[in-house]
């Protein structure tokens, strides 16, 4: 991009290339490196979100985006006669439950990855990363085969004269599916958080006679908190928008909010209503993400500098 004839002394103090100077813009090297990604994200992420917001204020059942402005979509959603609030309640409640269960499941594993497993850590990490590369519907369908009548569990129990309880197509199995799907999303940020706790600090506290509970509460937990919070946020946000678990395992016994959004966009062709629902979900997500992100120092978490 730049055609410096003199040896480059410092990338930062480099004169701007002819092109940028001609435009009157003096972009720093960092900003220039960021610009392709930024441009792509503006077109591929920001623009779709703005379109959704535009549709949310369009006349119901039309495609008059940015041409009409009405609050009718939101009025319909907040009308007590509309039962869509139940989908919101289910999605948020199940997402919350997913986070709580995963905190308990993942903490010992994350602790083990940082302090116990030693040279096995890398292998165990890969074992928990790999499922991310198998699409969730394949993995969830495997659970259907496990729990279904004459499936793996039922077949095994029948061998000893029992029969499997009917667990499929219930809210509980939906929660199970969500916990299962989002496990890695909790585990790895949590591991990152725990790896920020210096081992010698714990040693020192132990030498001074601190109990294990005290060490955990006063040292480990506060220092690992950024990673734990990222994991909790990531899991909550993804679970709040989850839909495959309720469809494949839950058999629609619970209608998730993403399902309602999908129906509005596809079968009922009411894009403004679907967009209004999506905007409400986005407000919850953005509110949580922004609050947390504002407090985090990503350089410290990722780079440990």
């Amino acid at each position, binding site marked *: 991009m730049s055609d410096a004839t003199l040896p480059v002394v410092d990338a930062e103090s480099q004169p701007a290339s002819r092109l940028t100077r001609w435009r009157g813009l003096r972009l720093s090297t960092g*900003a220039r490196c960021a610009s392709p*990604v930024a441009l792509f994200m503006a077109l591929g992420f920001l623009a779709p979100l703005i379109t959704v917001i535009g549709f949310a204020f369009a006349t119901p059942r039309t495609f008059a985006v940015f041409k009409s402005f009405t609050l009718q979509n939101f009025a319909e959603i907040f009308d007590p006669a509309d039962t869509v609030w139940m989908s919101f309640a289910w999605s948020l409640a199940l997402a919350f439950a997913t986070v709580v269960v995963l905190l308990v499941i993942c903490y010992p594993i994350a*602790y083990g990855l940082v302090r116990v497993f030693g040279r096995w850590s890398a292998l165990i990490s890969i074992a928990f990363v790999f499922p991310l590369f198998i699409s969730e519907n394949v993995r969830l369908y495997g659970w259907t085969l496990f729990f279904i009548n004459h499936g793996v569990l039922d077949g095994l129990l029948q061998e000893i004269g029992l029969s499997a309880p009917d667990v499929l197509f219930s809210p509980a199995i939906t929660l199970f599916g969500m916990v*299962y799907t989002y496990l890695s999303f909790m585990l790895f940020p949590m591991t990152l958080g725990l790896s920020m706790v210096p081992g010698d600090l714990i040693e020192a506290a132990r030498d001074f006679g601190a109990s294990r509970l005290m060490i955990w509460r006063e040292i480990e937990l506060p220092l690992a908190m950024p990673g734990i919070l990222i994991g909790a946020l*990531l899991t909550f946000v993804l679970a709040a928008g989850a839909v495959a678990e309720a469809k494949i395992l839950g058999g629609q016994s619970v209608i998730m909010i993403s399902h309602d959004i999908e129906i509005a966009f596809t079968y009922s062709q009411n894009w403004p209503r679907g967009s209004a629902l999506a905007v409400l979900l986005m407000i919850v997500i953005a509110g949580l993400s922004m609050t947390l992100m504002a407090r985090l120092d990503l350089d410290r978490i990722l780079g440990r500098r």
Partner: protein
Amino acid sequence: MDTTRPRRTHSLIWVWTLFVALVVYLPVVCGALAGLSKGRYFLFPIRAFSFEWWQKTLDSLEIQRIVENSILIALIVTVVSLALAFFGALAFARYDWRGRRLYQKLLLLPIFFPQPVLGLALLLWFNTLGIQPSWHTAIVAHLVWIVPVVTLVIAIQVYGFDPAMEEAAADLGASRWMILRDVTLPILWPGIWSGALFAFLLSWGNFPLSLYTAGADSTVPKWLYSKMVAGYTPMVPALGTMSTLAAATLLLLGGAIAGFVRARRNR
């Protein structure tokens, strides 16, 4: 202080981790069994094993086409996301510039966004632009989610990179291109390599984005889903298992190549 307690805790942690890992892979095993059992419907314990459904899956022209779709999408996603994410990661972790903190946080937003909603938002956007959804638009959708992931993966490598190396090369008169080729890329390649594996495999296994943005075209996960909802055949678990095995093979191969290159360099 007694040392038996921590040791007991450690074995409990081992047992718990192995148990959870077992549970994680249990449905994958169930799928593999279903794909290998003879007969139209899945019954356990399996009465007879056969490769009948694997053979049918391999013979199907329809499946051949969607596998080609999936591979092509994943390849393009890998190349484009590496190009964007390499510079994106330098901006994320290497250079100190005004707006970096904001950039870091905004870039993470697509990861912190439910994919079904992202897919639907993109569908709306493509329609508004008058673009017919197809496997081309699915590439864009995958990129929106995968570029931030790959940027993070490479950025973690960049954090461990000492900028003084580049400066030293510059002091010795190396051109920008030479610095990039002989200093920056060789140091960062482990991150770039894992970024490439992540990009390919995440695209290969992605379901929600493909579902809403691929239009009439199908990918492997999307085809599997359509058959799960209506018209189950044992080809579904058979193809699911093959897709998993393909991903595992690629991951192993990728790891082996990385190990091989590292070993040769250290010699």
